[in-house]
């Protein structure tokens, strides 16, 4: 019952009577923000600064003047607050994904070297290509964007052989492919994975993901024990809803306009992506807590799959009716997430409990290894004993044959 009222609320906002389920299925890739309007203030800012900034970025970072560094700071603050206007993303993303133009060119060259080469991950990648944003017109079957995505993911699997390919990254790369030419998209994606260390989420049996889930669970307990209890009571664990959020950096379940806004933010923090993801996942739960309290066990799947992401697809007109429409829910959420704080000592405590849990897991695993070793040693010994017995058995059998042979002889003689 609870979540139904949220449904109604969303549909009323959208001014529509269709069902949320039909209208918003996450991961389809419907782009509700294709004709995004630009806020006039942003237009002034970017038309004044975007070219200036691109000139700065084209220079060696160590040779930038204090004036130029100030401009960089201004640009970053602007993006943090309002995001990047959609039409400028193809220009601006590469400039914040890499340290300088030289680095971008290097990555693009690397791509041209790898493009079209075979990879052992190819069949996994191919299986996911048709299952990435299937609702988006540019990803319709056999379309050029699908081929680009395939080539980029294949090249990346060669560029980073330790990781290869991992599900979830297909949605991140697809979001980037939609915005810019192929080789530039590769450079931004590769940079996000390596320079920004997103790859940590997937490496070593998803160690980074497990750490994030641990943090999420602990932080929610600290910030709202009532929410944690409610989720526990309904048997909803972080891995059930947050795995997709994290492994695709919010690109697989949310409207593209929101996903792109998240990438704007991630690209500002080369050293801090894990921290930002932690903030976003925790805020995602806390910000929607009143709705989550209304959910019962049967509602959760719909809630996380459609209802929650649908909020982010609704555009609102400003109250005075003047000016472009905007994503009110998205803006409010991001403001909330920006304001999210966790005390240092708490962070240390969580980090500590995580490393304890990890060593416990490792110990359990090594115990298991020892048990396996012990049992295989026993098995070995039994096999040897078995072989001995078999030889003895053969020996006795031949003795028996001999004896019965003699018996027959004796019997015949009589």
């Amino acid at each position, binding site marked *: 019952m609870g979540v139904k009222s949220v449904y109604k609320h969303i549909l009323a906002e959208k001014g529509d009577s269709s069902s949320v389920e039909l209208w918003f299925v996450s991961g389809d890739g419907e782009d509700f923000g294709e004709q995004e309007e630009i806020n006039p203030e942003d237009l002034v800012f970017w038309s004044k600064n975007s070219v200036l900034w691109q000139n700065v970025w084209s220079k060696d970072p160590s040779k930038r003047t204090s004036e130029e560094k100030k401009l960089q700071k201004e640009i970053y603050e602007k993006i943090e607050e309002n995001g990047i206007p959609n039409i400028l993303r193809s220009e601006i993303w590469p400039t914040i994904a890499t340290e300088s133009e030289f680095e971008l060119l290097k990555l693009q060259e690397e791509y041209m070297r790898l493009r079209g080469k075979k990879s052992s991950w190819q069949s996994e990648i191919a299986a996911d290509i048709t299952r990435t944003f*299937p609702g988006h017109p540019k990803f319709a079957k056999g379309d050029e964007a699908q081929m680009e995505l395939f080539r980029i993911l294949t090249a990346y699997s060669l560029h980073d052989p330790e990781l290869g390919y991992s599900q*979830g990254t297909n949605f991140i790369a697809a979001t980037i492919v939609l915005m810019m030419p192929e080789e530039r998209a590769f450079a931004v994606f590769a940079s996000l994975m390596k320079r920004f260390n997103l790859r940590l989420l997937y490496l070593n*049996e998803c160690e980074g*993901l*497990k750490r994030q889930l641990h943090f999420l669970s602990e932080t929610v307990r600290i910030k709202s024990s009532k929410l944690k209890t409610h989720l526990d009571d309904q048997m909803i664990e972080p*891995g059930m809803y947050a795995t997709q959020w994290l*492994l695709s950096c919010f690109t697989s379940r949310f409207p593209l306009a929101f996903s792109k806004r998240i990438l704007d933010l991630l690209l500002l923090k080369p050293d801090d992506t894990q921290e930002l993801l932690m903030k976003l996942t925790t805020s995602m739960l806390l910000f929607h807590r009143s709705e989550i309290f209304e959910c019962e066990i049967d509602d959760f*799947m719909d809630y996380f799959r459609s209802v929650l992401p649908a909020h982010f697809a609704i555009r609102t007109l400003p109250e005075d009716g003047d000016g472009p429409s905007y994503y009110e829910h998205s803006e409010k959420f991001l403001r909330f997430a920006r304001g999210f704080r966790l005390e240092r000592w708490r962070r240390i405590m969580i980090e500590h409990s995580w490393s304890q*849990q990890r060593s416990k897991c490792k110990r359990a695993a090594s115990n298991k290894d020892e048990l396996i070793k012990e049992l295989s040693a026993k098995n070995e010994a039994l096999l040897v004993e078995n072989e001995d017995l078999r030889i003895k058995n053969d020996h006795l059998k031949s003795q028996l044959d001999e004896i019965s042979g003699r018996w027959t002889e004796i019997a015949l003689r009589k």
Partner: protein
Amino acid sequence: MSYDYLFKIVLVGDCGVGKTQIRNRYTLDEFNPQSKSTIGVEFAFKTVNIDGNEVKGQIWDTSGEERYRAITSAYYRGSVGAVLVYDVTKPKTFEALENWASQLRQYADENIVVCVVGNKIDLPTREVSTAEAERFARGNGFFYMETSALDGTGVESAFRQVMKKIFEIVDSRQQARKKTVRAGSIGKTRSIKLTDADDVAEPSKFSSCCKQM
């Protein structure tokens, strides 16, 4: 919504065999031709009536990707049923069942009820025969069913068969111990484990070291 029993059931099998489509057909009665890859794990619920008992199935739909095995296997723990899916048009996905079955043996309850499901029988290009698959299932003590998530054939009955079997095990054990306590009557609904008879009316335990999964 109240219920008497909660059974946790995992859906496993190679990438692209149709696990998510089977789940959607079963829980929502829908088939979305535009399928998306499952990242990690997704879940769904459906309640059915078995011999007058409201039994809720908690369906765990897992990614078939090798890398996520470490994560998805954490969900096997506490599962009392498993649906092992392969694609009848792709022999490779059938051959992989051996591997999936050994994963289950390693991580899941030893008495887990398993149903092997050959999916996509609506396609004309079948390459794995029913006899072959039945032999595999019988050899391992599993059920066998064939389904089409596209038109719905077999999906409902595959799950029903698994749930009914689990119910029988739980019920006979309760009969044997003359336990008249029904989970629902204690106020809080219980989830079911199969190995330890004493656990029958206990709440599910997520006490293992990897519980955050």
